[in-house]
């Protein structure tokens, strides 16, 4: 692993107010974590030429992701991190294709490979612990650099919006005032 070109470690952490990808569909919880930033130590950011809130690329040997950076002094300079599984594919989880989760949120998994590059141990060795086969998520090494000025202010990669499936509720309206006892009628949820 070429740690000169890819000097930084990239991690994800699970937020206390969301559990993996289960809670972007939750109207209350997604107001707390709507989209995710990449948290970077200010000195690391300055060394890579971008400011707080700028659009940047995270690149690993197999892929790259575009997202927004957020300065944080609460992270070790050699590490960048984001919240786990806040970013979603457009249109999934009952959300509108324009929801923050797909337009401003991103998924770090794209840059983490499930297999090691071919090595003497084998052609397709799993990117895991050799003793237990545990996925070595946090071994991923990345480099970060600012996105060009002209690039669209949307995270990448983007996917064709996922369609709603039969049996799913109709698209919810602009307002939702939940009062137990009267909600399902108002939100046109069939039982």
């Amino acid at each position, binding site marked *: 692993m070429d740690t000169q070109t890819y000097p930084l470690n990239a991690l994800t952490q699970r937020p206390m107010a969301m559990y993996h990808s289960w809670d972007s569909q939750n109207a209350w919880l997604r*107001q707390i974590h709507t989209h995710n930033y990449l948290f970077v130590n200010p000195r690391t950011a300055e060394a890579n030429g971008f400011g707080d809130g700028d659009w940047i690329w995270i690149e690993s040997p197999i892929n790259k992701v575009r997202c927004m950076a957020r300065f944080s*002094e609460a992270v070790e300079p050699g590490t960048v991190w984001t919240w786990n599984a806040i970013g979603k594919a457009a249109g999934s989880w*009952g959300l509108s294709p324009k929801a923050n989760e797909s337009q401003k949120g991103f998924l770090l998994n794209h840059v983490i490979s499930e297999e090691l590059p071919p090595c003497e141990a084998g052609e397709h060795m799993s990117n895991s612990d050799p003793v237990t086969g545990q996925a070595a998520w946090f071994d991923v090494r990345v480099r970060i650099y600012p996105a060009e000025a002209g690039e669209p202010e949307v995270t990448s990669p983007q996917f064709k919006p996922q369609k709603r499936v039969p049996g799913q509720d109709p698209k*919810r309206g602009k307002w939702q*005032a939940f009062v137990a006892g009267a909600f399902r009628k108002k939100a046109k949820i069939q039982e």
Partner: protein
Amino acid sequence: MTQLALVIDLNVCVGCHACVTSCKEWNTSGWAGPLTDQRPYDADPTGVFFNRVQTYEAGVFPNTETYHFPKSCLHCEDPPCVPVCPTGASYKREDNGVVLVDYDKCIGCKYCSWACPYGAREFDEQQKVMKKCTLCIDRITDMSLPESERKPACVLACPTRARIYGDIHDPDSEVSVAIREQGGYPLQPEWGTKPSNHYLPRRKTRIQIHEDELVRVDNPLKKEALPTLPEAGETLDDVAW
């Protein structure tokens, strides 16, 4: 008169947002509901919350401190949001000092939110009235609930018991003791609003290890001392008479 309030212990608050959503859950179907959400499943969802948890960072790496900071209405003893209200919708209860809004009187002029330095009021864009933390007034005065549950929803939910509830005018209440003994402080005291809610500051527990404490007499390494083999060379004993 009693002044009910919350004391929030920043020394143990881990920022899990339990107080945020348990409050929303209770109040949206309760007396002070509904707490309307706007664009709940679209871009930039927003909605009325009576309580929010914020995150702050202090200092530069590696001496960085991270603070989780729950903030809701502080139920001031001299609330600036009450006199300014033209219709009397914003009022402070005599019996327990809780500051409330009467939705039938509120004309939605938002003047009370201008007069609150803490930003503790949120306007319901659909119902067009001002809403705020009611200290779960419909719960704390509900005699059908057992004593242990006649507390605000956020206090019952908080896993680290960082939210203490009680009467700050009663010197022996849990809140008063906590404020006195752990240095409880109000927010923006300069304005003289005398906020009832207080916050307890962070405290560090340090250990002092003295060098001479490290190695005790019964150090296990002594047990491993190998018998010292005698050097092979001549000794006095061999040569002297």
